[in-house]
């Protein structure tokens, strides 16, 4: 092994494709995390209403979580297809023109973010459900006596009480989002115009398509440090909120 000092890092900072992949991953997270939080919390609140068939609903939300990402990706490739995909059929039925969900460079990464949310949200529904069940019912009863509306109860009691779960969901989706690989690998190969090239896909390509092992290891180390930095910042921000 030859020691080359910081050459790999100099290269990294001038590697535009790497920064493109980081930007793509951040765009992905920008939609994925809020969407995941809102949908998971919404479904968990519904499941927490003592309705019937809760275990059926819970199981159906959970189905994509246990199935391989490969299966989910192959499925969604068809759902998002330009000509025959069911989603574009809905879009045209409503009178709009077809959307290039996976071929439009400005949209593709967000389509993947929606798909990833669909795959993972069932897990977060369960986590929120566990969190919701720890909120003592007396709090709601007291609030009702004071005349608080449902929304006020949710905002002033539920949200602060489940703050630890919110934090956990944000962290887990961040770490999961930074690991995005198989979805773009199968669906788009990183295209169109490298707009769905994720960080991990780029690290993989550097190592196993261009055979730059050393450089790829550098990328991996730098990328992982970035993840830890982002998680620490999130922790600080969310803790400040309470």
């Amino acid at each position, binding site marked *: 092994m030859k020691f080359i000092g910081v050459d790999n890092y100099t290269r990294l900072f001038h590697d535009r494709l790497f920064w493109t992949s980081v930007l793509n991953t951040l765009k992905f997270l920008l939609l994925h995390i809020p969407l995941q939080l809102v949908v998971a919390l919404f479904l968990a609140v519904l499941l927490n209403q003592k309705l019937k068939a809760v275990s059926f609903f819970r199981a159906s939300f959970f189905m*994509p979580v246990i199935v391989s990402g490969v299966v989910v990706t*192959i499925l969604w490739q*068809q759902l998002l297809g330009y000509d025959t995909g069911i989603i574009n059929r809905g879009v045209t039925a409503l009178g709009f023109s077809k959307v290039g969900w996976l071929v439009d460079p400005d949209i593709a990464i967000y389509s993947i973010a929606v798909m990833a949310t669909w795959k993972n949200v069932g897990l977060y529904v369960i986590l929120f459900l566990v969190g919701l069940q720890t909120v003592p019912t007396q709090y709601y009863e007291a609030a009702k006596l004071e005349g608080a509306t449902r929304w006020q109860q949710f905002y002033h009691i539920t949200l602060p009480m489940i703050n630890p779960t919110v934090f956990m969901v944000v962290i887990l989706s961040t770490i999961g989002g930074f690991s995005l690989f198989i979805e773009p*690998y*199968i669906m788009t190969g990183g295209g169109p115009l490298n707009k769905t090239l994720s960080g991990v896909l780029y690290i*993989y390509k550097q190592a196993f398509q261009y055979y730059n092992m050393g450089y790829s290891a550098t990328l991996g180390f730098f990328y*992982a440090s970035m993840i830890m930095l982002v998680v620490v910042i999130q922790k600080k921000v969310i803790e400040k909120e309470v």
Partner: protein
Amino acid sequence: MKKKFSIGKWLMYVALTVAALSFIYPFIWMIGASLAPLHEIGNMTLFPKNPTLGNFKSMFEKIPIGRSLFNSLFVAIMSTALVMLTGSMVGYALAKMKFRGRELIFFIIVFTMSLPFQITLIPNYITMVNLRWVDTFLALIVPFSVNAFAILMFRQAFQGLPQALIDAARMDGCNELQIVFKILWPNIKPTLVTIAILTFIGCWNEVLWPLIVIRDEKLMTMPQLVTLFSVGGRADSQLGVKIAAAVLLALPVMIAFLFLQKHFIQSMASTGLKD
């Protein structure tokens, strides 16, 4: 009061049902499409008009999918068994034995959990190359045979058991291994189920690592083979085969899920609920 209440409930059921359909529909469609002739797949209907097993037949002819199913099962079962063994032995030592450096070892194990896998991906690959394990099952099994999360789970489970149980077993002449596997294991069944499910599913669905260390088609795991078939262009004109492969990949896990639903959900949720 009563009326408003029921309208609210009705709306909730509608919302839940729409959500449930959006999660289930794609899977039902997938199974339908795998049984449809190519010209019908594009219709996106749930049930094919002229069902056929043609897609599955040509899948078995075109790619060694049966072989990969065996590989995946073998690798996942071996890894799961090893994780249960190593996890309970290390977990027991950390929970119930006193020795110098115990806290340090525990700290190091926790620390490795917090490292993103991107750091170790390339170094691990290079280790596999140096050991000449590339293109062997060893590369798929050994790196997954010790798992920090499993160790923590076992440690926690053993800590919850009374010391008297261990002392009594020692009096009866059990050695440490017998204590762990004969005396303690029957008392931590939920933990065993959780770890087995998590490890098995994790192994079954892992695809990045096999893509890196296995190039020989005969040794490929099922998700890997299906992935390469899907991106390699071999599937372009064979959408039906691709979907059939996805069905075969999903089916074992889905069937297991139908039977062990509660265990699956509890296990997966516990990965998020620790610490």
